[in-house]
């Protein structure tokens, strides 16, 4: 039996694995270990959902100062916006909250309040500096109570591939008709659509559609008012001329499609700028504020807010952290390093030269900012809205009847929430 030869290397391998993982374990525990030795050094756990670039700035330029000022250590985790409710619920139910403060997409807040996973911060509202734009504070208010604090507003800008636009003698569209023309031209010239919409479903699709409907003068939560019908009819017309990648386009993948030149025009948050232009070297990709609809130009103000989960072990420190993130100092770093728009009227960063035109377009788009309605049944609305999008835009069902159906279902949901 030469099979016996196997046994020795295998045992060696397993022992090796054990040692490495044990070392890993110890390594992990080494961080809390000094806590017991030097009790004044608390660990503040933060969860956010950021890109690699953004994490780098946070960890190198923003966290260290806070750690020094408050003699603590920050541990940060990447938790996707969609996973955060489950993560918090898990920890609340197990009775051990390991996150002290979290950042969350301001479109996915209702469920956190609904499930009772966050602390009521109404008592600390006075902590918010006066320079913070009032409208941004309202996004964190549910049923009259303030649960979330603003720290990052965001707005989608429109990316376009300047080289390709020049090649076909086009200029970036300023309204829906031009958008349709541009999409048609690309499809004619190249045989494949080059304008990208985010059709993968979920928050990216909802957010984009919200903008479209408002700029057509409709109310998305109604489903079948005039603006909604107009928007869906327009999208049905537009869909065949769009890039085939639209079906899998989300916020993250949109960057890839633009970089791959699979799409020449697409809307996305500004976080794509450093990725597309700097990481992937696509300097021909430019941005502008966007196009207007038949009634007005509108861009949803998105972004992130900070909240404190129920049972956070270091609530006081977490509040200090929120205060720190809202400070002029931090807001200016974020603006200059990442071209993030600021929540403060007085924070204007000195962005790097190459980034200036992009930053300009962000500020321009902010001028057309709108806030989406802050309703408790947002999660249900989101599901229905996505279903409607899939049925009408992707699968081509008749607009009016389908929207009527969803309007009725929406009414039922509203009733469940007591009108």
């Amino acid at each position: 039996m030469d099979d016996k030869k196997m046994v020795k290397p295998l045992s060696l391998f397993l022992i090796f694995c054990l040692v490495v993982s044990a070392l890993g374990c110890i390594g992990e525990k080494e961080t809390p270990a000094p806590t017991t030795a030097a009790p004044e050094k608390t660990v503040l756990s933060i969860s956010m959902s950021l890109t690699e670039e953004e994490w780098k700035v946070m960890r190198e330029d923003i966290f260290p100062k806070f750690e020094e000022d408050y003699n603590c250590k920050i541990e940060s985790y990447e938790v996707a916006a969609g996973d955060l409710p489950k993560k918090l619920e898990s920890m609340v139910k197990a009775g051990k909250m390991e996150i002290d403060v979290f950042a969350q997409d301001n479109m996915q807040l209702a469920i956190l309040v609904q499930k009772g996973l966050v602390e009521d911060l109404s008592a600390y509202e006075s902590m918010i500096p006066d320079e913070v734009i009032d409208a941004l504070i309202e996004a964190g208010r549910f049923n009259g109570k303030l649960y979330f604090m603003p720290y990052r507003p965001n707005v989608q800008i429109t990316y376009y591939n300047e080289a390709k636009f020049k090649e076909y003698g086009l200029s970036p569209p300023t309204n829906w008709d031009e958008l349709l023309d541009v999409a048609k031209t690309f499809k004619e010239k190249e045989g494949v659509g080059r304008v990208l919409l985010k059709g993968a479903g979920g928050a990216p699709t909802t957010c984009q559609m919200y903008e479209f409907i408002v700029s057509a003068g409709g109310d998305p939560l109604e489903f079948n008012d005039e603006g909604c019908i107009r928007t869906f009819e327009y999208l049905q017309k537009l869909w065949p001329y769009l890039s085939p990648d639209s079906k899998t386009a989300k916020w993250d993948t949109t960057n890839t499609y633009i970089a791959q030149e699979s799409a020449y025009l697409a809307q996305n948050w500004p976080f794509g700028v450093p990725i597309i232009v700097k990481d992937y070297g696509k300097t021909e990709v430019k941005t502008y504020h966007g196009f207007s609809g038949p009634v007005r130009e509108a861009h949803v103000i998105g972004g992130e807010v900070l909240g404190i989960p129920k049972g956070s072990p270091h609530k006081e420190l977490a509040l200090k952290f929120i205060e720190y993130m809202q400070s002029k100092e931090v807001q200016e770093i974020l603006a200059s390093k990442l071209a993030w728009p600021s929540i403060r009227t007085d924070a204007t960063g000195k962005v790097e030269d190459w980034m200036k035109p992009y930053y300009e377009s962000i500020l321009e788009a902010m001028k057309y900012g709108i806030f989406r309605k802050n309703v408790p049944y947002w999660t249900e609305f989101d599901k229905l809205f996505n279903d409607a999008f899939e049925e009408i835009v992707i699968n081509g069902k008749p607009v009016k009847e389908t929207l009527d159906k969803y309007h009725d279902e929406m009414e039922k949901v509203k009733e469940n929430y007591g009108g």
Partner: protein
Amino acid sequence: MSFVSFSFFLKRISKNKFEIILILPLALFVFGFTIGPIIQAIMMSFEGIFGGNFPTLASYSYIVHHHYFKAALFNTIFITGVGLSLELIFGMILALILSEKFFGRGIFRAVMLLPLGIPTIVSASNMAFIFSTQGFLNELLYRIGLIEVPIDWRVGTIKPLMTIVVADMWKVTPLVMLILLAGLESIDKQLYEAAKVDGAGRWHRFRHITLPLLKPYITMALVIRGIDAFRIFELPLVMAGRHVPVMSSYAYFEYVERNNPYTSAAGATILLIMIIIAISVYLKAVGTEEVTR
């Protein structure tokens, strides 16, 4: 099945105490963490979406009206049927090639086994690179002049499914090949010699000697692969996303993206029923005794 044998044990407790103690942890684990959760999932599927009274069919009536569920049902059956047949055909071709003697056979075998060393999620990402609109397959077709405009592999009903079938084939055909190769090696060479003497051609020998003798191995490959093909998950999840669902990815999206455990449970239950039906129909047709090994 386990339950019957379990009660059978009880009668023999005194006789086989030692064995029972040894087997107990295994049995407890399987009951606690496999059978238990499955029953829990089935129960969950009868709970209401809006917390209605148990049992209710609300989740089921929700999903059967959901257009993605119908698509998932069709896609799963399509991928299983087409995928299995193609994997069997190509596995057979590869096994036949490998049963020949030729220069570089060892290297060829090693190359064929490469997919077994690739985790499924990794093969899914590799296939996504290849089948992307600006991916390597479109580039290849473009360079050899077959297409001008990149093909959109995600549009239509059959095209996206075929990409998934190809991806699945890449990953598991080597396994089918190994099973069939084991079968080929078990066939007595003298049978072929005798047939040759009788003047039987290559095809004739294959049809009348190889195939019948391979039947148990084919059955094994079909059962093992059939179960996995129904449960296919990573490949469609990564390559096709939400708009081309299969049963597993439908259940996943219902739970993870739409936060709806009850409809997800209903989807999983229907998938379980599908597998049970398919397997029992197949085993009825060919008989059980061939499955063991």
